[in-house]
């Protein structure tokens, strides 16, 4: 069992992610009511929120340093924040502002942060080979940094998954592959897309360890990731970790989710990993209710400040669109 300090840190991370995502959800609909227009409001375009998947980001990234590389997906905020991305510059990027991580060029699916060696992208499984490359560079440079690749269970049926795991295993690179199985790829359920039940079983196709975390538990994630990260760091090669997690919201905001039953929605809401974890923290005495309240309050303040920074920042000049094609 991790120390109480670690448990509190995990909790804190999860809470600030949740507050960030819920805040963003509200903001996203600004200017999009009564008639929903995806192009309108302060935050246009698709918006994929990760509420429910906090245990994955918090549990894995707790083991990382800023020099470790992380590649994430179209649903990147939880991982970005857990890996230490500046929340203000993240928010500003999502608002399309000059002060954003990419000066408004990237947007929510294309966040690149040299300070935390973080990257993500909107193409399924696109970041998996990138992670292999980071790890190869670290090996060549004699650094004991590692790379972590996050991807959804839907991405595990993309060719890049196969090629990346094989290459990482072949070259014994320090990569941890983290499959966030939230049971859905937009409207397609896992069992209508994947021939077997658990992607962690696919690890054997590459001769690497595969671990299944069946219940979205941050502590279990933390422990499995600890082993995988340590193995990667000491040159022991890659691993695959699969977490059965929950997508509490739609695939993107505005998704009517007609493909999901009410019962399923209720089940996943009921088993909200943060609430369950909080019950455990109180039961074990690691935290009290006032402790928890304080965490939420601090998170709200942090997120409010980030949003305020984003809102009050200027837009980039229109002509700036022509900059940065080439270095």
């Amino acid at each position: 069992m991790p120390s109480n300090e670690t448990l509190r840190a995990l909790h804190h991370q999860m809470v600030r992610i949740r507050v960030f995502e819920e805040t963003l959800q509200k903001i996203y609909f600004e200017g999009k009511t009564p008639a929903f227009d995806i192009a309108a409001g302060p935050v246009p375009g698709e918006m994929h929120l990760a509420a429910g998947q906090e245990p994955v980001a918090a549990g894995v990234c707790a083991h990382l340093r800023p020099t470790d590389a992380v590649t994430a997906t179209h649903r990147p905020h939880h991982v970005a924040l857990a890996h230490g991305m500046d929340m203000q510059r993240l928010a500003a990027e999502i608002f399309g502002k000059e002060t954003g991580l990419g000066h408004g060029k990237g947007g929510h699916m294309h966040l690149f942060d040299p300070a935390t060696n973080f990257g993500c992208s909107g193409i399924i499984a696109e970041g998996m080979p990138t992670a292999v490359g980071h790890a190869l560079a670290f090996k060549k440079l004699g650094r004991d940094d590692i790379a972590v690749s996050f991807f959804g269970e839907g991405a595990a049926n993309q060719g890049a998954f196969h090629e990346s795991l094989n290459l990482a295993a072949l070259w014994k690179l320090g990569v941890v592959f983290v499959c966030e199985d939230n049971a859905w790829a937009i409207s397609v359920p896992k069992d209508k897309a994947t021939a077997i039940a658990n992607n962690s079983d696919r690890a054997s196709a590459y001769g690497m360890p595969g671990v299944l975390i069946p219940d979205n538990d941050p502590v279990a994630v933390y422990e499995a990731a600890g082993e995988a990260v340590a193995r990667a760091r000491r040159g022991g090669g890659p691993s695959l970790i699969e977490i059965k997690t929950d997508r509490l919201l739609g695939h993107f905001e505005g998704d009517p989710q007609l493909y999901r039953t009410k019962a399923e929605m209720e089940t996943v809401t009921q088993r909200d990993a943060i609430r369950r974890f909080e019950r455990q923290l109180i039961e074990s005495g690691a935290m009290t209710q006032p402790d928890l309240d304080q965490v939420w309050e601090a998170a709200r303040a942090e997120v409010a400040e980030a949003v305020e920074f984003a809102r009050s920042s200027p837009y980039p000049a229109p002509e700036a669109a022509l900059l940065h094609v080439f270095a």
Partner: protein
Amino acid sequence: MAVETRRLLTTSKAISEAIAQEMERDPRVFVMGEDVGVYGGIFGATEGLLAKFGPERIMDTPISETAFIGTAIGAAISGMRPIAELMFVDFFGVCMDQIYNHMAKIHYESGGNVTVPMVLTTAIGGGYGDAAQHSQTLYGLFAHLPGMKIVVPSTPYDAKGLMISAIRDDNPVVYFFHKGIMGLGWMTPNPRATGEVPEEPYTVPIGKADVKRAGGDVTIVTVSLMVHRALDAAEDLATEGIEAEVLDLRSLVPLDREAIVESVRKTHRLLVVDEDYGSFGMSGEVITTAIEGAFDHLDAPPARLAYPDVPVPYSRPMEQFCLPDREKIAAAARQLVKG
């Protein structure tokens, strides 16, 4: 008392109606793709089809574009007539080999002995903040590669007729629909995305351009959403006494070169509007076509207004800066006419 009955459909409904009618007519037609089932296609192109035809004919797939587009190829060879949806054209890079090296070439490599009758549908276009990997048009890239027909409708009427033609065509047809013309409830409304569509099945020929507005002063050649932007601009220009002809290519392969040349011979001026990247694409091809066929009829060098050669930026002011629009088109046409 005569009652005028006009049957108005959105482009997405026109497309799904076309597919439904062909599926009823021909049991070999079926649909495969991500979220084409319950979801009805992210852009509504397959809405209602699952309820009508069931999961055996409207098949949700894993996120495995190489596999399912390749599956469509094999099924087409063995007697079916698949429609496969690549959700966004931006994703072509994960499966292009199947498309351009296999689907497009088998008929040729077989010396004409094997046909691959399939339709690949895909969504194009930006303007709504979806950034560099979900906003591209890219039809110019596909049109560069031989062996597939390239269809890019602009109106509900054309969308239905071209879809029926595409399904009945014995060749692979790539069918690009622009999100901004689909008439979706969640996109910025475009009044021109709804239009009259006959209920009965009909075809629009692939390879024939269409004069969407006649005019004698300048020819504006374009496709898809930009047809509407050009029509808007033509209205503005008309108030200034400039009559623009708007030529909707409707397909890039085959390219209706005669129509381009004919219009330019009439107006003596050409503006190409293109939401695809400017260089090495459609704009240069159309201008070259005019040069090849109407050089001596030109009163001014043909001009183009295209997406600049930059990835699509996320932030609204930058994205709008890049996109051709009503004002920019009118300005470019005015410049051509007035010098």
